[in-house]
């Protein structure tokens, strides 16, 4: 195998991977915001909002990511919205990330003893105060180890956002694979980028989990 071709292409591969990381991290941030919002909607007593939140989660977890991206990409011209590839990628990843995040937060919420909510109720806290001051800080803390899983998920998901026109690392290796006729080398290189990053994230997540357990 001729990995020297890969070495020559490294600057481009790194640039592509930079985009991968950018949209994954930003997607996680957006996803966290959306996830908290959806989780709050799920928790309200208004059935219409609660149902809407459940539908949101169901759609983004039930439809294949590729299809979601295709729908999103074709929706933009349909609705007359013009987004840059990076913005489109971050939006798309944020939306699906938000659905997974909402489920994650729901699990974290369930882990908080109900007595703490009762204490708040007995003291006369309003529901909003209970959610904001008593539950949310704990939920985010409990969910932090799992958030690294979220990031890993989005890093892998970003491999598909070339559909919305972003030249992230998989797309870059595809281009080089085609032009140099050396698919194996380039796809192995792409795989290596993901593997190293995600292994590192997984390691961080495991360490975070152990820290949580001690507290």
């Amino acid at each position, binding site marked *: *195998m001729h990995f020297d071709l890969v070495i020559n292409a490294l600057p481009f591969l790194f640039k592509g991977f930079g985009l991968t990381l950018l949209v994954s991290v930003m997607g996680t941030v957006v996803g966290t915001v959306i996830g908290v919002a959806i989780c709050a909607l799920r928790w309200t007593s208004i059935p219409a909002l609660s149902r809407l939140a459940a539908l949101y989660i169901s759609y983004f977890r039930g*439809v294949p990511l590729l299809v979601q991206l295709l729908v999103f990409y074709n929706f933009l011209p349909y609705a007359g919205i013009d987004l840059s590839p990076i913005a489109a990628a971050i939006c798309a990843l944020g939306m699906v990330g938000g659905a997974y995040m909402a489920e994650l937060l729901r699990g974290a919420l369930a882990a908080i003893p109900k007595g703490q909510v009762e204490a708040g109720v007995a003291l006369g806290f309003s529901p909003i105060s209970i959610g904001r001051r008593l539950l949310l800080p704990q939920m985010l803390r409990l969910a932090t180890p799992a958030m690294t899983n979220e990031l890993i998920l989005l890093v892998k998901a970003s491999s598909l956002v070339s559909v919305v026109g972003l030249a992230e690392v998989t797309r870059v290796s595809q281009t080089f694979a085609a032009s140099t006729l050396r698919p194996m080398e380039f796809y192995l290189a792409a795989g290596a980028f993901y593997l190293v990053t995600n292994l590192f994230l*997984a390691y961080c997540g495991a360490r975070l989990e152990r820290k949580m357990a001690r507290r």
Partner: protein
Amino acid sequence: MDMNTLLSYLPALGRGLWITLVCWLVASVGGVALGLVIALVQRSAAAPLRLLIKFYIEAMRCTPLIVLLFIVYDGGPAVGVLLDPIPAGIVVLIIHGSAYFAEIFRGGFQAVPAGQIEAANSLGMPPLAIVRRVLMPGALTAAMPSLINMVINVCKETALLSIITVGDLTFAVQNMAVETFAAFESLLALALGYWLLIEIFSRLGQRAERRINRHLRLRGATGKGGL
């Protein structure tokens, strides 16, 4: 898009759906089977083999599926592995999925209290019988929700096969979208189609879960199955 055009595409869509379902079924069964074998081997293997398995599982969980597909389908011929799209896709789905299924089974095994295995051992039960009568029932009960979840994931993964030219549902609808210029509508319908498919399977899965749990509890706990 008028009704006639849509009807003219129905056969192609039907074929696409059929291929999606077949790939889903084969990849799920294969993944579960391979995953179970890996999990069982991991339980009783020596340290080096366990390490190898662990690395394999981590590698599969850290690499995007599309990259794996490209490696096997596009890169394969360069090392003498020539596979048609469908076999290539199914093989990759099985190998990739087996890592997840192995982890799920491992979690299920851990959920069975060690004391139960100890009791079986002290009674002199042969290992295979212990796996069959003590370990698996408990593990399956614990793992069932995750197993169903993962099978649903495999269904979603089959959509990626369209990228390596497998004529699945996504592939068929994309063709239709391109040819009829009704891209957004077609793709939205595709999304809703998968959503429906997965909702149906999810409900069936929950029902099956209840039946299997009842069956496992009756045969295992009360010993009515006969030793």
